[in-house]
Structures are given as structure tokens and as C-alpha cells.
């Protein structure tokens, strides 16, 4: 009995000491972590507010937030739960807050953050949707800001430029029945002329990823689910 108590006391002491040390390191790194996450968000917002064909900003330079106050001024919708919209069937989630920017041409540009479930957990994506003159939404660009639990060399390639670009410039027609990766749309193996057909596939809601992300379907599927949830949210809230 005495031995068991001794062991329990030693284990408790070790855990308490480790806990105190970790708490200290957590407090020390809290501010740098918040800053790093915020910088990643600023960069992602600037990226999705850029026309990926011309490289020009879709908004005036002074519209790009550089501080937390400037970012907060762009909040369009938010709630205290942290989730603005969810579709558990996909599953896809839109996180609070959602931002609204005015384009150079006067159009509304919605910048949303959301996540789907990848191979190792949440895959967080920032995306911009331009509301065109006919009221329909055009998905401009995405930036995947958190894929820390995806497998390096496989799912973690989701934010590589050649993979990410496959999710750019998806018109309203693509979201009619929801976008899907090409494996889920029975477009596999790919035909020999698939590269020239990628814009056509996007109009049909098919995102070709199997050639640039070999051996990883779950991660791009989670991004597709996120974009579908974002589109459903905009359809519900804007129209």
C-alpha cells in the first residue's frame, strides 16, 4: 500500500512540475502564436482578394487590412458560437466572422473562412466570392491556412500553388449541385486532353486534383466541402 502511495505521489509531482513548466512556456509563446496566426490570416485575405489571372488586387490597396481594428471594420456577419453555418452532411462549416469588401468595380466581395474534415482533422480554408451584377457568385480564389494535421508529401500539398489553383475561378454553375473532386465525379483516369478542359470541368463543378495530389483525395475533398458550405451560406444569407 505504502509503495502504491509513493508511486502515486511521485507521478503526481512529476505531472505537476511538467504542467507548471508547460503553462509558463504557453504564456511565453501565446502572443507570438496569436501574431503568427493573425499574419497568416492577413496574408490569406490579401491573397484571395487578388485576381489570380492578372495578379492585380480586386480592391483598393487601402482596403487590405493590416491591423486587427481594420480587419474588424470589414466584418459582415459574426456570432458568438464561432460557426456561422454548418452542413453536417458534407461536412462543411463556415466560421465566424465573415468579411465584406468593396471591389474596385463596386461589386461585393465576400471573404469567408471555413473548414472541412481532412485526413487528420480540420482543414481551414479562406475563400473569396465575388457577387456579380446578376447577383450570382463567382468563387475567385482560396488559401488553405491550416492543414497542420495532413500528411506531409500527400495531403499537406493542398496549399501548393499548382494544387490550390485548381480551386480558383469556379463560376456559379459549378456550385449548382456542389463542387466535387474529379475522383468523386467519376472522372478518373483523366482523359489525355484534360488540362485544356479544366475550365469546362469547373463550370460543371468538377475540380481536377488527382494529377497534382497523387494518393490524397480526402484533403481536397474537405476543401470542396468547405467551399460548398460557403456557397450555401451565401445563397441563404445574401439572397
Amino acid at each position, binding site marked *: 500500500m505504502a509503495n502504491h502511495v509513493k*508511486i502515486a505521489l*511521485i*507521478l503526481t509531482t512529476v505531472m505537476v512540475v511538467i504542467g507548471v513548466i*508547460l503553462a509558463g512556456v504557453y504564456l511565453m509563446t501565446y502572443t*507570438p502564436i496569436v*501574431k*503568427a496566426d493573425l499574419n497568416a490570416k492577413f496574408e490569406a485575405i490579401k491573397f484571395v482578394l487578388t485576381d489570380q489571372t492578372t495578379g492585380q488586387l480586386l480592391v483598393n490597396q487601402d482596403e487590405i487590412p493590416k491591423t486587427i481594428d481594420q480587419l474588424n471594420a470589414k466584418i459582415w456577419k459574426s456570432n458568438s458560437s464561432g460557426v456561422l453555418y454548418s452542413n453536417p452532411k458534407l461536412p462543411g462549416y463556415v466560421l465566424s466572422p465573415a468579411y465584406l469588401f468593396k471591389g474596385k468595380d463596386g461589386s461585393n466581395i465576400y471573404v469567408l473562412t471555413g473548414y472541412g474534415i481532412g485526413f*487528420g482533422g480540420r482543414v481551414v480554408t479562406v475563400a473569396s466570392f465575388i457577387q456579380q451584377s446578376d447577383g450570382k457568385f463567382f468563387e475567385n480564389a482560396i488559401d488553405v491556412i491550416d492543414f*497542420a494535421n495532413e500528411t506531409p508529401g500527400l495531403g499537406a500539398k493542398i496549399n501548393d500553388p499548382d494544387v490550390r489553383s485548381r480551386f480558383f475561378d469556379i463560376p456559379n454553375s459549378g456550385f449548382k449541385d456542389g463542387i466535387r473532386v474529379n475522383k468523386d465525379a467519376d472522372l478518373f483516369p483523366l482523359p489525355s486532353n484534360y488540362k485544356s478542359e479544366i475550365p469546362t470541368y469547373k463550370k460543371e463543378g468538377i475540380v481536377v486534383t488527382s494529377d497534382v495530389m497523387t494518393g490524397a483525395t480526402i484533403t481536397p475533398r474537405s476543401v470542396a466541402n468547405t467551399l460548398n458550405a460557403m456557397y450555401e451560406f451565401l445563397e441563404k444569407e445574401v439572397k
Partner: protein
Amino acid sequence: MANQNGETNLAVLTAGWIKQNPTFVQVLGMCPVLAVSTSAENALGMGLATLGVLAISNLFISFVRNIIPNEIRIPVYISIIAAFVTMVNLLMHGYTYSLWVSLGIYIPLIVVNCVPLGRAEAFASKHGPWKSFLDGLGMGIGFLGAIMLIGITRELFDAGTIFGYHIWSSAYNVFVVALPPGAFLVIGLYMGLFRYIGKMRSQKKVQGDESK
């Protein structure tokens, strides 16, 4: 200075570099080596993180080795290693964000990497703090060297670059080295090369002794 086992500090420090290299000789901790060595930058990040955890956890485990009962030594060792891995994870999140995102789940997984626990059990639990620290440092350097060698090779043959710097044309690129089978191929080839070099050196030594 030699200890009671006749091991000098230099011998302890250098044991993990080649003779007992954790990757090429002991074949330990292969999961992160295979998964993260897709580029030189990732390999450097993972190698340095593992080196830090190995050296510091070995030091602390050696300090507490005499007060920890034998029955609970493994949970305590794992807890100490997990604490240092958590610290490394927090520091990388705050100060090297893009590398932290690239390495992903493999930073927390250093906890279950065989190398830190293996050295804790095999060395730090039986030796003093200074020697244990040197052992962790030496093994960490060996692990860093091995993963860097594999990372540089894979990046060079996949993208034609090293640390992002262009080395040769994409015409020489071998796509398979970036894939999981490519990691096995590269590691296998290096293991074969090192064994061949070791064998040649032993033969030369024997021939030299005979000629004397």
C-alpha cells in the same frame, strides 16, 4: 575523460554520427524520416526539433533517474519527452509558422519516435546528466545528418532544387523520389552505400594489419 564503462565524452558524442546512426544503422524513428524528408527545409526543421528534444529530454531523464521507481520509469520518461515536444511545438507555432504548418502532425509525433524513448531507456537511465546530454546531442546530430541527406536528395531529384535554390533543369527530375516509395528507395540506397563503405574500410584495415 573516460567513465566507468571506458567511454570518453568524445566517443559518446560521436557514437550516433555514423557507427550507431539512428536512421541508417539502428533504423529507428523511420516514420518521420520517410514522411517529412520531402524537402531539405522540412528535413532541417524536423531534424533540429528532434535534436533539441533528444538532448534536453536525455539530460532531464538522467537527473531524475535515481528518484523514479522502476515500475513507472516509462510513463515518466514519456511525459518528460512529451513536455519538451509540446514546448518545441509551441515555439515553432509562434516563431517559425510556415515550417510549423509544413511539418504538421510530425512535430507532436516526436513523442512516439523511437529515438528519444530508446535513448532514454538505453542510455540516460544508466548514465550521468553530462554524458546523457552528449549522447542525446550526438544521436540528434546523427538523426539530423541522415534526414538532411535524404531530404536534400529527394528535393534535388524531385524539383531540381536544394532549399529552394535552383540546381539543375527539370529534365533530370525523378518524380518517384517525392512519393512514399521514393523515400524507401533513397534510404535503401544510402544504407547500401554506407554498408559498402564500412565493408571496404574493414577489409583495408585487415589487409593493413596482415601486411604489418
